[in-house]
């Protein structure tokens, strides 16, 4: 075919904008093929290649960064600074997740090429969600992410708990997708378009707002389900606890970027003019999540489950930013999403580091006496817990400061006060880990650190980043603010 005709079929500018996604898709398929022809002993190569793919994708994404926002494929795909920053976050945290996962999966005979293929497809799904310009592309990305995640959770087939978790995840995830889709169909019915920009234009006129609002409610439920916001949080604790920890780490941290992207695209790019209505709903979800997450977390003895409930409460904090409904609020929520992803990766990694073949350091009690066995490691875990609790100068503090500011700015003083009270409740259970590590005596031999050097280094970098990014919060913050032109 002559090149001119090809240009007519798919304008090269469109392909250019989509280059990171196209590359990620091809790379995931390629890895799947390479894995087929690779001896099991040499599977380390796949790990290396997967990391390389992430780096290459980061280069491709960074190439256009800072340029003006562009759309491709008739508005189906949007590339702007917010998308670029979120995607870079996805690559970075995914890379950490891969490094953490390798020894864990090896110890449990789960180290297969499928992990990388599924994870990269999940990354691709997230990239599509982040850059979605229409309801269809957003839904496609979401389903790609969701299906890959179900597969990842179910990877440990012999383990009934993991299978149960996967089943729950699948059923409730499908329900959430259904609700979201239903909402989207209502929005389509009210506006006659799947394009978010077109929906935005129609939503600005008061016609059909009843039907549109009806759709918005269902879309919001879908978003809340995916985020794990209460009262749509039931799947979170079971899935987090049941999934192999390395998988929990991945699905518990990286997709937060994408869910934030989805919420932003749907709520602001799509039905932004209706923000007076949905802001109150988001505020309500935030309040319920804060209370439910923090109060139930108090009663947990399983660390993974505790982190699951803590996720719910952090989603509540993130929604504080969304509930602001303005650019400053989105910047705050995005900063929170980025901070939380980094913190969550580190928190789950602290479990991985104390686990070994046949033993998962899932209980809080497994952290007892860590300080006496390995002081530096305990100090790093202290950083993570302090950051999650929102103690300055760690990263988590600035994230909380930013969303509380957004809530106050949006006139939601009651929510801001509820949030800080919940932060104190949260501090109590994070302190339980610190207590176990520092103040209690080890059980038996005490906690043993995993010998893998890469994981140790990655963990040290990840946890120290919470302090460094906290003290020097400006670059990350200004990126997030620039993304929404604050």
């Amino acid at each position, binding site marked *: 075919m002559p090149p001119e005709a090809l240009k007519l079929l798919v304008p090269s500018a469109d392909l250019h904008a989509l280059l990171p996604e196209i590359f990620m898709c091809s790379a995931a398929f390629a890895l799947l093929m390479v894995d087929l022809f690779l001896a099991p002993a040499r599977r380390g190569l796949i790990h290396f290649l997967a990391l390389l793919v992430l780096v290459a994708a980061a280069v491709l994404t960074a190439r256009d960064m800072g340029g003006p926002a562009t759309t491709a494929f008739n508005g189906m795909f949007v590339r702007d600074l917010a998308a670029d920053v979120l995607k870079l976050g996805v690559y970075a945290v995914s890379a950490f997740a891969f490094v953490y996962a390798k020894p864990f999966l090896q110890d449990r005979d789960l180290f297969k090429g499928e992990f990388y293929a599924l994870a990269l497809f999940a990354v691709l799904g997230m990239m599509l969600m982040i850059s979605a310009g229409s309801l269809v592309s957003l839904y496609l990305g979401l389903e790609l992410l969701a299906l890959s995640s179900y597969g990842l959770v179910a990877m440990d087939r012999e383990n009934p708990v993991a299978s149960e978790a996967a089943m729950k995840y699948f059923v409730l995830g499908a329900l959430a997708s259904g609700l979201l889709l239903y909402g989207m169909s209502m929005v389509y019915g009210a506006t006659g378009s799947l394009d978010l920009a077109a929906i935005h234009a129609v939503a600005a006129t008061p016609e059909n707002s009843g039907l549109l609002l009806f759709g918005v409610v269902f879309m919001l439920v879908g978003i809340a389900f995916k985020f794990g916001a209460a009262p749509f949080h039931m799947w979170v604790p079971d899935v987090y606890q049941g999934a192999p920890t390395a998988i929990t780490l991945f699905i518990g941290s990286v997709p937060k970027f994408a869910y934030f992207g989805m919420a932003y695209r749907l709520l602001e790019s799509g039905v932004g003019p209706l923000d007076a209505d949905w802001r109150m709903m988001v505020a309500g979800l935030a309040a319920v999540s804060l209370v439910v997450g923090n109060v139930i977390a108090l009663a947990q003895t399983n660390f993974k489950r505790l982190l699951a409930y803590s996720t719910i409460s952090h989603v509540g904090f993130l929604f504080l930013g969304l509930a602001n409904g303005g650019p400053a609020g989105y910047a705050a929520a995005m900063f929170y999403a980025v901070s939380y992803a980094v913190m969550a990766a580190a928190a789950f990694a602290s479990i991985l580091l104390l686990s070994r073949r046949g033993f998962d350091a899932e209980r809080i009690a497994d952290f007892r006496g860590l300080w006496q066995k390995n002081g530096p490691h305990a100090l790093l875990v202290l950083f993570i817990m302090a950051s999650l609790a929102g103690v*300055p100068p760690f990263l988590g503090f600035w994230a909380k400061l930013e969303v*509380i500011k957004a809530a106050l700015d949006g006139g939601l003083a009651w929510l*801001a006060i509820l949030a800080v009270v919940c932060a104190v409740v949260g501090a109590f259970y994070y302190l339980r880990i610190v207590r176990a590590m520092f103040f209690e005596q080890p059980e038996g031999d005490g906690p043993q650190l995993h010998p893998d050097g890469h994981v140790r280094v990655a963990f040290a970098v990840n946890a120290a980043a919470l302090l460094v990014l906290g003290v020097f919060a400006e670059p990350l913050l200004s990126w997030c*603010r620039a993304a929404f032109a604050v």
Partner: protein
Amino acid sequence: MPPALPLLSLLIWLPIAGGALALLFGDRRAGQAKVFALLVALLTLALTVPLFTGLDASSAAMQFGESHPWIPSFDIGYNLGVDGISVALIGLTTLTSVLVLLGAWEAVDNRAHQYFASFLILEGLMVGVFSALDAALFYVFFEAMLIPMFIIIGVWGGPRRVYASVKFFLYTFLGSVFMLVGLIYLYLKGGSWQLADLTALPLDRTEQMWLFFAFLAAFSVKVPMFPVHTWLPDAHVEAPTGGSVILAAIMLKIGGYGFLRFSLPIVPDAGHEYAWVVIALSLIAVVYIGLVALAQADMKKLIAYSSIAHMGFVTLGTFIAFALAREYGYEDTARLGLQGAMVQMVSHGFISGAMFSCVGVLYDRMHSRMIADYGGVVNTMPWFATLFVFFAMANAGLPGTSGFVGEFMVVIASFQYQPLVAFAAATTLILGAAYTLWMVKRVVFGDVANAHVAALSDINAREAWVLGVFALGALAIGLYPKPLIDLMDASLVQLVGQLATSKL
């Protein structure tokens, strides 16, 4: 002209860096770590000297200023500066830190390098609190302090240390998050975190009321005031000696300092309107907590309650200033109240630090804090008994000691405010004497109570140095408080002007 050396930054970061380095020594070289930590603390103390000599006490302006953008997106700056009030408290901090390290030399043998490192880091953060001119920076230091203190109580504390440390952390955290919301509100309204800008920011009545109670939540827990004082006896009893000393001598002062820096200048009208709340709570602290102290069987608990009662004077002296300056027009008396509060803070730093150190000396030998286990200590430890009795007298407010000066000033000022208040406050002179001297009588005097007491050895040179320096401080302020009062006078005059001016 900017000073050649960023003195305040050095005072903050030198101990923090020193603490981080001390951690690296490891348990096997804990002995070297101790020497290193002490040298760092001494160097920090030496660096405080130019602060005192270089300060122009006749000016209320913030001096030794440093200003760098920190988080420009938020308009948060790394802005430091001190006036007489801050310098007095920074001096107290660096001096007490040295004494605490010296006091713990032999008492702590479990992971001593980490113990010393924690105190150094804590020292840097406390200096940061006293020199921050940016509200966000202040909050960062204010909260970051909790972590080392939490670890100190929880790791090296007594049998119920876990409970005490968590209670300490959560109480303080809960109080301060309300302040955080208040500060964010102020930032949204005024677009600045600088204390000077916040002071100038006009606020209406309702706003001031909410902000006043937000600040009150944070600082009343820290002081602590009745009824949020209950963490203090637990924390003091369970903390190791050094932790108790730092807690009583400096961390409580941060509450009083916060009132002076935030509540008084930023929300003067709400402060005036609700001063009665604070005054009432202060009087309860003075009278009721004084009675509670009388009933204690544990020496550390007794001193902890006595601290609460004495800190009641600080809040009393601070908040009577409103009515004095605004209703009666006695600006000089208002200043006297504030001076009394400040002198009381510094004096209490020396006396309570010394009292806890004394209990530490006894505890190191007998491993008991119960009054009933002692008796007739004077027979075996005459030098110690001398110092202990001196500190007890100071604690009871004997003229000639620093304990008398602050309390006397506050009582005089409150007499002009309301004679009944002065009467209630003055009961502390009786109650304080009662509980302190009764404890001393039971512990120090009488016949040797048991074989353990008979086997006691008197204080060694190191302990004598620690207690001697505390005694010198208490005596110096007691006999000649003028330099201390002059140091802070210009700032307090300015403060009286600020709280007397309505923002409405």
